[in-house]
């Protein structure tokens, strides 16, 4: 049991004393998860929006497919992305294997379905009178888009948080595609896997606490943004 206590103690030591290895992993985690969430939002919101407002044949099937992708296991994504990015794979020439952008590519695949599905649901559940109202007010398509997005902003924020939570805590993609390279692609989650593999449970717990602190900081930041937006 004392390794739990020891872990707590060590977490604060690592953070307060500015342990360079820990901060390198924190930086890598924040960097890669920011890239992933930005890419997921940039691609996912328009796609989700499109899916939410349009009715077309096969929409139900598409939604079912999308919902299945919500539970895409991270190790399978890791495996797929590894196969594509390997020098022997079709995208090997990009040189993305064992780099953070490579990991971000995989994590984007993880976050994208969440953003698309939740955006679509958010847009679908908006007041049905919004669209006719906007049209009678003479809104241009651009204005309609921005007004609808504004109405859905809390749901979108929730979607972003849900996707970020999955991305930041994921280990399969980071380990396989990133390779857990010290000072480069070692994130907090892969560092935890490594320390546990070395039998250093206290350090593993300490890093787990650090990860929770990072997640908490992001949440507080988003909450502050939300407050300002209202």
């Amino acid at each position, binding site marked *: 049991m004392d390794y739990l206590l020891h872990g707590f103690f060590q977490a604060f030591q690592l953070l307060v004393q500015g342990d360079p290895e820990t901060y*390198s992993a924190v*930086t*890598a985690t924040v*960097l*890669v998860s920011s890239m992933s969430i930005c890419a997921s939002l940039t691609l996912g919101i328009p796609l989700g929006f499109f899916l939410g407002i349009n009715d077309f044949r096969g929409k139900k099937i598409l939604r079912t497919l999308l919902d299945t992708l919500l539970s895409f296991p991270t190790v399978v994504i890791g495996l797929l992305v590894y196969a594509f990015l*390997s*020098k*022997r794979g079709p995208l*090997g020439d990009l*040189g993305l*294997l*064992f*780099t*953070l*952008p490579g990991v971000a590519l995989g994590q984007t695949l993880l976050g994208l379905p969440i953003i698309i599905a939740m955006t679509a649901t958010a847009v679908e559940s908006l007041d049905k009178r919004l669209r006719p109202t906007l049209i009678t007010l003479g809104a241009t398509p651009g204005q309609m888009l921005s007004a609808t997005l504004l109405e859905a902003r809390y749901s979108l924020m929730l979607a972003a948080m849900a996707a970020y939570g999955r991305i930041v805590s994921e280990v399969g993609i980071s380990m396989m595609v990133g*390779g*857990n*390279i*010290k*000072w*480069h692609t070692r994130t907090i989650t892969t560092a935890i896997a*490594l320390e*546990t*593999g*070395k*039998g*250093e449970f206290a350090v593993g717990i300490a890093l787990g606490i650090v990860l929770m602190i990072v997640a908490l900081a992001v949440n507080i930041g988003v909450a502050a943004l939300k407050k300002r937006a209202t």
Partner: protein
Amino acid sequence: MALPAAAGQSLMMATTTSTANTGLLDELIVPEFQKETGIEIKFIAVGTGKALKMAENCDVDVVLVHAPAAEQVYVNSGVLMDRTQLMYNDFVIIGPDSDPAGIKGMKVVDAMKTIAGKNAFFASRGDNSGTNKKEISLWKAAGLAVPDKADYYVQTGQGMIATITVAEEKGAYTMTDRGTYIKYAHNHDGNPALKILVEGDEVLFNQYSALAVNPAKCPDVQYDLAKKFIAWMASPATQKKIGEFKLLGKVLFTPNAGK
């Protein structure tokens, strides 16, 4: 930091978990090599099986592994070249202090037969790593089939320390390299639950070698850097440092380049 270092500045290596978990790479090899040559080593710690596969896919420049028979297969197929033996340690069979099957001091072959005969728990990595390959060869040497589906045979699919931890929880025997065992003992303040029961048999010898990825098979590979690294590892100065790398006052790897 996400960007690749300038060409010629960083070497990609795939290696086994034992060299990473014991701290040999992080504490000695990587910093010393960078200090002396300016070249950074980026290493990925996986089992020997996967390290060799990574070489085959041209994803790394050099490998540091410990499965001579498997290495030879890749040398024969032209994927790897310049095989240089660098250091060794040995494997040991460890188990609970109480030694439920009574294997202490036996020859390896007899110990394996006894464990199987008494259905005593045995933890295996089951991950196709160098250690796992060695363990499988020991079952075969004892004239037994690998007890793949036997209830007493626990395959963890994880690294060595994680497997030792499983063995500890289940009161099982397992086979490990001595370096990792010392690291495990170090984690338990020198008083671990599992003790060395079988050692010293010559079949337990564990040779580590470095091999460069063949540029003829993988044109993008940094063959010059790989060659430089291998030569540096085999140099008398580095060999001396490897021999002086200790935990709990015990040598983890014995250098033997050129022998």
